[in-house]
């Protein structure tokens, strides 16, 4: 298992992501955005969280034109597995690899706290170790996490089980921190090889730090 983690100017979760996957036994490599290729033995490509290009213009808008992104899009189109966390989700949505867009939280506040999430679908490699409707405790930390998709797009997501996680309370009832359409916290593409979510599973790896629910999530990629 070789996890390649992308690093843009302003990325700040690459080392947490590296820690998380190495804890699970994977080998990892951080790749700078100027690289025009990604290592050929990559089995999972992670676009880590942070503030690529300072979130200028829109979150993820400028990162999508970084040299490495051509290789990322190629890799994804050939069926390679890609995971975008937080700013990584924004980058993948801007690049058109995932449907919808992330806009400013309804409250206009930056939200940074633990939040419970409900597993909406588990028929995918990412969440296959979790039960459908299971509730997990994962930190969120974003200003632009308000997921938007139009009605037609939303119906498509439901039709193909593309909604991964929704924000909920501890009992799995809807609790929406940021105004996302249908409380959506993460989605995948129709082919189920590109995944994006605003919460940070790589920050939920140690129970002493509040939660280790991220382990079961990220493990899905390792037991492929």
């Amino acid at each position, binding site marked *: 298992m070789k996890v390649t983690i992308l690093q843009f100017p302003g990325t700040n979760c690459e080392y947490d992501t590296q820690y998380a996957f190495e804890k699970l036994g994977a080998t990892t490599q951080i790749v700078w955005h100027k690289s025009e290729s990604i290592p050929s033995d990559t089995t999972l490509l992670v676009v880590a969280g942070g503030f690529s290009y300072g979130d200028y*213009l*829109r979150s993820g*808008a*400028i990162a999508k*034109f970084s040299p490495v992104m051509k290789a990322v899009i190629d890799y994804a189109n050939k069926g390679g597995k890609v995971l975008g966390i937080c700013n990584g989700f924004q980058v993948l*949505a*801007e690049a058109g690899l995932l449907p*919808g*867009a992330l*806009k*400013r*939280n*309804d*409250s*206009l506040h930056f939200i940074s706290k633990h939040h419970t999430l409900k597993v909406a679908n588990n028929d995918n490699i990412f969440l296959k170790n979790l039960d459908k409707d299971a509730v997990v405790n994962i930190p969120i930390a974003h200003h632009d996490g*308000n997921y*938007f*998709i*139009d009605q037609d797009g939303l119906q498509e997501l439901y039709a193909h089980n593309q909604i991964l996680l929704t924000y909920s309370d501890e009992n799995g009832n809807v609790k929406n921190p940021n*105004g996302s359409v249908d409380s959506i916290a993460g989605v995948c593409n129709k082919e189920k090889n590109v995944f994006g979510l605003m919460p940070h599973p790589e920050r939920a790896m140690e129970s002493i730090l509040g939660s280790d629910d991220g382990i079961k999530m990220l493990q899905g990629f390792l037991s492929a």
Partner: protein
Amino acid sequence: MIKAVVNVFLKAGVLDSQGKAVHHALDSLHFNNVADVRVGKQIILKLNTSDKTQALNDVTKMCEELLANTVIEDYEIELV
């Protein structure tokens, strides 16, 4: 040289939280005749061309590829 002014706004139907917050603030300042507020951004470009048709084509492309996210935003281009 042509100057292009690009205005980018959230589409109608996409909740504009910043617009709402500004509207609320205007209300508290007793500006009670405000019906709606939209907050957007303005991008001003200076183009090395005098051909207006080409300028409009170029800026439209820039909007589609980078300046606006057409999933949630509309744009208007004005050449001056």
